[in-house]
């Protein structure tokens, strides 16, 4: 039976989570140098376009189709092209169309689509300034198909005895708690980012040559939009306007506040100054950590998890210098580490009085839930890393991955997109015939476009 209140909240949540990807584009875009900002943002925007379509074609079906074996995969054909999910008599009262719980099935489809989109976009932070756009799209499509869609099935597809629908192994057999995607989204993306960064290799001159963020106002704007959208991500995962959503909402505020403070304190102690990039980074770290745990820990537990995530992620972003991998915008340090923290700490902080109604180690629940959390986290981490590594090598073999060193020096925006992010000059640095050339001539352009003569 459709509940308009639940539906209203899920419609809003879908819009909120979709906004997160443009928000991420700004968050990432501001952190790179001005000659790469457009490409950085394009990797996120293109994820929306590409993954949104794949989701409708077969992604939703792989993730939420009836299990075809071992809780590893949903039936890719069951809902291919969203068939069977929308046809009905919308005029009748009560209307007849497929539902999922108290909301129309299509809202659930849209809501989950935005999760698939942003998970793929998150990965791009690791390969700023150097990955060609075509290979990015190829990798993104393959990764979503082979990694995200199945893993979403593992974690988000719950079995339903009534309808006899069978879901994924982590959600049902292992029964690890991951309310909004600490494993499927953040550990998954972070692990893939590490693999891709390793295969793509370091930026020319990194780490010797410093590459400072070109526009921190964009970074802070992006962090603000991410937080805003994340309310849909976390409280929306309650799939209705209920007490669980309220609970997740409050934890999504408190843990994030604590993480911001945690990151700033760490900077103050270690570097002498709290920075705006640190505040923005702390916000994201806190949101990542509370994503899996927002419905299973008390508000004070949420504050504790946020604080821990803020401090540990602020330290973790330094790892890449120790180990020498160029995870350019710290997808590993923030999303992989933050996701692990949030997922594992549930084993300690889970409060029986919370919607999840599970007791963690600190609440006398012993290590039972803890090991489930660890197994779930590690499973996703390993699967994502290995498959991503293989996919990256395959793409490299087929089409290659990087722009040339000269092109990298010139700037990937000019090379891959034939554009410049900003032009504040008073004079016209550009000239020449504007307007489209007759087709043949136009064909000649591409050759030239963006190339240094």
């Amino acid at each position, binding site marked *: 039976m459709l509940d308009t209140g639940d539906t209203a909240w899920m419609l809003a949540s879908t819009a909120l989570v979709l906004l997160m990807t443009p928000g991420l584009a700004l968050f990432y875009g501001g952190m790179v140098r001005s000659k790469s900002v457009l490409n950085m943002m394009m990797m996120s925007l293109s994820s929306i376009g590409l993954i949104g379509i794949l989701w409708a074609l077969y992604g939703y079906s792989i993730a939420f189709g009836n299990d075809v074996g071992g809780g590893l995969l949903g039936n890719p054909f069951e809902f291919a092209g969203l068939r069977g999910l929308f046809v009905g008599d919308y005029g009748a009262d009560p209307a007849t169309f497929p539902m999922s719980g108290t909301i129309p099935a299509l809202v659930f489809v849209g809501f989950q689509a935005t999760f698939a989109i942003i998970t793929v976009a998150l990965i791009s932070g690791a390969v700023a300034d150097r990955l060609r756009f075509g290979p990015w799209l190829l990798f993104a499509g393959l990764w979503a198909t082979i990694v995200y869609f199945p893993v979403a099935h593992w974690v988000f597809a719950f079995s339903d005895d009534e309808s006899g629908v069978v879901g994924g192994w982590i959600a049902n057999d292992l029964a690890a708690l991951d309310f909004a995607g600490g494993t499927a989204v953040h550990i998954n993306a972070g692990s893939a980012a590490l693999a891709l960064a390793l295969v793509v290799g370091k930026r020319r001159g990194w780490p010797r040559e410093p590459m400072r963020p070109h526009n921190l106002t964009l970074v802070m704007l992006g962090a603000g939009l991410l937080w805003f959208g994340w309310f849909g991500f976390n409280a929306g995962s309650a799939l209705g306007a209920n007490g669980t959503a309220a609970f997740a909402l409050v934890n999504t505020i408190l843990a994030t506040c604590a993480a911001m403070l945690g990151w700033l304190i760490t900077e103050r102690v270690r570097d002498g100054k709290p920075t705006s990039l640190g505040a923005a980074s702390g916000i994201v770290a806190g949101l990542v950590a509370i994503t899996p745990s927002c419905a299973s820990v008390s508000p004070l537990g949420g504050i504790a998890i946020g604080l821990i995530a803020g401090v540990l992620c602020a330290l973790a972003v330094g790892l890449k210098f120790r180990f020498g991998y160029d995870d350019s915008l710290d997808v590993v340090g923030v999303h992989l580490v933050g996701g692990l923290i949030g997922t594992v700490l549930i084993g300690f902080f889970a409060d029986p009085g919370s919607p999840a109604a599970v007791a963690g180690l600190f609440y006398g629940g012993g290590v039972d839930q803890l090991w489930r959390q660890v197994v779930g986290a590690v499973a996703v981490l390993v699967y994502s890393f290995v498959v991503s590594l293989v996919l990256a090598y395959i793409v490299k073999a087929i089409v290659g991955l990087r722009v040339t060193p000269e092109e990298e020096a010139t700037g990937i925006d000019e090379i891959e997109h034939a554009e410049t992010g900003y032009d504040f000059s008073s004079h016209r640095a550009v*000239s020449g015939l504007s*307007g489209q050339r007759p087709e043949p001539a136009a064909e000649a352009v591409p050759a030239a476009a963006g190339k240094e003569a």
Partner: protein
Amino acid sequence: MKLITAIVKPFVLEDVKGALEQIGVLGMTVSEVQGYGRQKGHTEVYRGAEYSVDFVPKVRVEVVADDTNADKVVDAVVEAARTGKIGDGKVWVTPVETVVRVRTGERGSDAV
């Protein structure tokens, strides 16, 4: 005194700076410029309309030096800025009649 002006590619600035330090040059003034010359620009496309960008970003490095040092400075810069590719830039020397250090009022060699 001489003023050595160098127009070079942006990414060699660090090397030029290093080379000058090598020969004991303590100061320089740098600015962003747009260059036009043999090195052609590139084409940008916005909504299908082409824009040919004729100017290439360059960096101007200015160094005031003793007559005796001038050649050393020129050679050091040319050395450091050369990539062998079109667009490496130019270095030119102009005579300077007086130099004053604002802070102290010192003139000539003592000023730089």
